[in-house]
């Protein structure tokens, strides 16, 4: 067995993997390297190919093209029951004819683990997921959160190289979901297993993952940590899917070192850009609502580079105040301020919109490619 240099670092590697269902392309030439012991999320709207990707890693789907490696071995032809992966299913798929301990012991019994060893490991798992004392319960007698824990224990007890989770918290209500997110993260920390977590909920992915891949239309848009993706999105889709953003279409007017001047309609703004931009190039600007600043324009004097705009709407959202600012050309931008941090501006008044060079980033792709609001749900 030859081990490539550095290959040991990665538990799961996908190389140019595609999956077609008939003429439909579910996964389109994706490559990924997931580190050992990492909490990795596949994040994207429904139909983006994230579940299909997970099912290819687990062995339930065969890639149409490309290679999947687990622990350095190509597993394309290995059936699910011979893979070192275990899965927590979206519908949980617990065995209704078995009680809690028999559900958890299922995998160990198949592997003919000694009886005393099974008892010990099942007890340890029940302890880990906080279900000690529930050994003899039937699945139908458990609450949704408890069933969730059994599903996790049933998979983890086999000590898989990789634990695959397919939106396992989708059916739970918000409070329980947040609690389970914390517990999952804690469990992952304790057992140190590689977790691959599929979700359409960006908040969930941000809260739990070390790194994540944002998927759209069968492709990977960007891979990175939460802060990476939030602060330095590469595409309009990522910028709009993770958190909230203002997207503006503009044209590069000039570059001075790392600073680029962008024209948005009649306004100008200065952005710090890491990649070179050619003059005259069409660009898209992404600006997070909390990175923009507003001030009253009534004092007169125009601050350097600030945009004179009209405050169209003010909404009180509890911890923040949301301002909708109408810039020249009619586009509305969102600006968020912590509630109570400054004097509240009034609807209809003239305001100045301030940009500092780090308030916005240039992103690839057109504004039309942004994640639609209904896709976020």
């Amino acid at each position, binding site marked *: 067995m030859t081990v490539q240099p550095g290959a040991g670092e990665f538990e799961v590697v996908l190389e140019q993997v595609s999956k077609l269902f008939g003429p439909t392309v579910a996964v389109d030439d994706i490559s990924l390297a997931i580190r050992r012991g990492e909490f990795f999320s596949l994040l994207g709207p429904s139909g983006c190919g994230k579940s299909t990707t997970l099912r290819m890693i*687990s*062995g*339930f789907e065969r890639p149409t093209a490309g290679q999947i490696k687990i622990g350095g071995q190509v597993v394309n032809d290995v*059936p*699910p*029951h*011979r893979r070192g*992966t*275990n*899965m927590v*299913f*979206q*519908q949980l*798929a*617990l*065995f*209704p*004819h078995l009680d809690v301990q028999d559900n958890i012991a*299922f*995998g160990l019994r*198949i*592997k003919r683990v000694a009886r005393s060893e099974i008892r010990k490991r099942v007890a340890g798992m029940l302890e880990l997921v906080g279900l000690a004392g529930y050994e003899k319960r*039937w*699945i*139908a*007698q458990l609450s949704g959160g408890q069933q969730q824990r059994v599903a996790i224990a*049933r*998979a983890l007890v*086999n000590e898989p190289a990789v634990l695959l989770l397919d939106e396992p918290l989708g059916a739970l209500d918000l409070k329980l979901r947040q609690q389970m997110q914390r517990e999952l993260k804690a469990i992952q920390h304790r057992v140190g297993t590689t977790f691959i977590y599929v979700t359409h909920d960006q908040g969930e992915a941000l809260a739990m993952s070390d790194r994540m891949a944002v998927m759209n239309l069968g492709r990977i848009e960007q891979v990175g940590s939460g802060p990476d993706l939030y602060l330095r999105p590469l595409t309009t889709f990522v910028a709009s899917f993770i958190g909230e953003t203002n997207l503006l279409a503009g044209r590069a007017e000039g570059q001075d070192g790392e600073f680029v001047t962008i024209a948005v309609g009649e306004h100008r703004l200065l952005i710090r850009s890491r990649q070179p931009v050619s003059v005259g190039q069409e660009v898209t600007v992404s600006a997070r609502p909390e990175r923009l600043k507003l001030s009253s324009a009534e004092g007169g004097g125009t601050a350097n580079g600030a945009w004179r705009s009209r405050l169209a709407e003010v909404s009180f959202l509890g911890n923040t105040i949301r301002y909708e600012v109408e810039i020249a050309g009619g586009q509305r931008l969102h600006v968020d301020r912590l509630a109570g941090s400054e004097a509240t501006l009034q609807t209809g008044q003239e305001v100045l919109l301030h940009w500092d060079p780090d308030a916005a980033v240039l992103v690839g792709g057109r504004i039309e490619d942004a994640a639609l609001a209904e896709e976020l749900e």
Partner: protein
Amino acid sequence: MSVGVGARPGRRLESKRRPLVRAALPFLLLVPSGLVMLLFVAALLLLLSYTFRPYTSIVIEPVWTLDTWKHFLTSSFYWSIVIETVELASIVTLATVLLAYPTAWVLVQIRNRALSVVCYIVLFSPLLVSVVVRSYGWLLLLGDHGFVNALLVRLPWIHSPVRLVFNFTGVTIALVHILLPFAVFPLLSVLRQLPPNVREAAADLGAPPWQVFLRVSLPLSLPGVVTGAQIVFTLAVSAWVTTVLLGGGRVLVLAKLVYDNISNLNWPLGAVECFVLMVTALIALAIFGRLNRAIYAGKET
């Protein structure tokens, strides 16, 4: 305010009348079936009274006696018939369920619509053909010079036709054929409703296909097996036409005895046999019911 007060008595009247109608409606709907049940119970009671009459050829004498019961219960001949009846029904039930399971399994897997329609028609065709026609059909197929024996005698180790009719074998084959759909139906619904992903979950936990079947699919479909077996047993234990036509008088079961005795106008003995048959079926039903409860125990809320 005044409108509200005025409206109140009317509403109260309405609310008083409604529950009466609502309470009576279900019972009204039960009247037709209730009448039929009443007739049935009356007939049963009449039949029960016959079992305590003496047999004096044509007339039912107005005398009470336990002789017929004693005659039946102390005779080894009648007991052997009870045993043969239960044996036939059990073998037919076992064979039917064993055939029905793979049949239902394959039917559920078929994705091609046209093919599945054809399979369903073949499977359920016995129910569309008269029992007499069907039985004579089997006589033709299984007779000494029938199609099956024509094939069998070509085999090197079979020299003369195998006896397949007018015996236990023939009756069993024909009954299994007729009763197969009754076992397939409940299995189909159970197999279709297997919880999603449980088979995948078992495979994911390391179970090869045969273990997935033994540890997950089979136990989860047991309720369908028991229900199917229950229906098949009940029908097989009281089957008459098939038993008589394909048994050729050599296969003696309770249903045939009942018919023979009643045609001989021995109503008391026929009635006793009826009740023995009914009790046998009820005992079987109770056993199957117990099995089903054991399977379901605690697993559903």
